[in-house]
C-alpha cells in the first residue's frame, strides 16, 4: 500500500515494507532534484527560445552534446521512476478489481520500459553526426573504412 503519511516518522511507521519506505524517500529526493532539472529544461527549450524554430537540426545538435545527454537522461530516468511510482499509487487508489488492476499495471509498466529504452537509445546510443555533417562538415569524422 502507498504511504499516506505527512512526516518521515509517520511514513516509517506506516510503511508496509522497506521497499515502500524507500519509494517514499525516493519521491522526495527525485522531486527536489527535478525542480531544477525540469524547470531549467523548460526555460532553455520553451521560454528562452521560440519552440516553433525547433527542428531536426536543433534536436540532433542537443542529442549529440555530452552535457545534454547526461542532463536529459537524468530527467528521463528520474521522471520515469517518479512518475510511474506515482501512477502506481493512483492505480492502487482508483482500480478496485484486482485482476483489472494487474492487467492495467502490466500494460502500463511495459509501455514505460519501451519508452525508456527508445529514449535512452536516442540519447546514448545513436550517432547523429552523419546527418548533421551535411550542414556543418566536420573534418575526418565518419569516414567509412
Amino acid at each position, binding site marked *: 500500500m502507498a504511504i499516506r503519511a505527512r512526516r518521515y516518522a509517520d511514513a516509517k511507521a506506516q510503511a508496509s515494507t522497506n521497499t515502500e519506505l524507500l519509494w517514499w524517500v525516493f519521491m522526495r529526493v527525485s522531486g527536489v532534484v527535478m525542480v531544477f532539472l525540469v524547470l531549467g529544461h523548460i526555460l532553455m527549450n520553451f521560454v528562452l527560445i521560440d*519552440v516553433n524554430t525547433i527542428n531536426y537540426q536543433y534536436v540532433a545538435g542537443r542529442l549529440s552534446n555530452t552535457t545534454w545527454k547526461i542532463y536529459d537522461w537524468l530527467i528521463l530516468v528520474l521522471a520515469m521512476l517518479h512518475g510511474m511510482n506515482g501512477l502506481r499509487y493512483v492505480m492502487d487508489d482508483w482500480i478496485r478489481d484486482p485482476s483489472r488492476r494487474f492487467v492495467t499495471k502490466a500494460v502500463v509498466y511495459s509501455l*514505460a520500459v519501451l519508452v525508456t529504452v527508445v529514449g535512452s537509445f*536516442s540519447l546514448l546510443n545513436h550517432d547523429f553526426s552523419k546527418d548533421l555533417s551535411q550542414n556543418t562538415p566536420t573534418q575526418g569524422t565518419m569516414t567509412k573504412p
Partner: protein
Amino acid sequence: MYRGREGQWAFFLHRISGLALLLWLFIHTLNIASAMWGPAVSNRLMAFFHVPIFQIGLLLVTAAAMYHSFNGLRIILMDFTGWGVRYQRQLWYGVLGLCVLLAIPGLILTVPRILHAASHGGGQ
C-alpha cells in the same frame, strides 16, 4: 478529507498535474527520439506538434510542471519540518502565487510567438 477544502484541491491538482506530466513525458520522449529515424521523419512529427492547439497544450504542461514542482516542495516541507503542516494553507497560497508570478513573464514571452506561428499556418 482531513485537511479541509484547500488541502483537497491541493491534492487533486497535484495528482492531475503529475499524471499530465507523465503522459507528456511519454509523448515527448518518443517525439524527440524520432530524430533517430532522420530529418524527414523528425521534422514531419515536429511540424505536427507545432500546430497552435498543441502549443496551448504546451502552456498547460508548463503550468502543470510549475504547480507540481512548487507543491511538491510544499509537501516535502510538511513532511520534514515541524511547522510545515501548521502553515500548509498559507504555503499553498504561496505555491499558487509563485506560479502566477512566473506565468506572467512566461506568457509575455511565449504567447506572441504562438500567435505569430498561428497566423503563418503553424510551425517551421
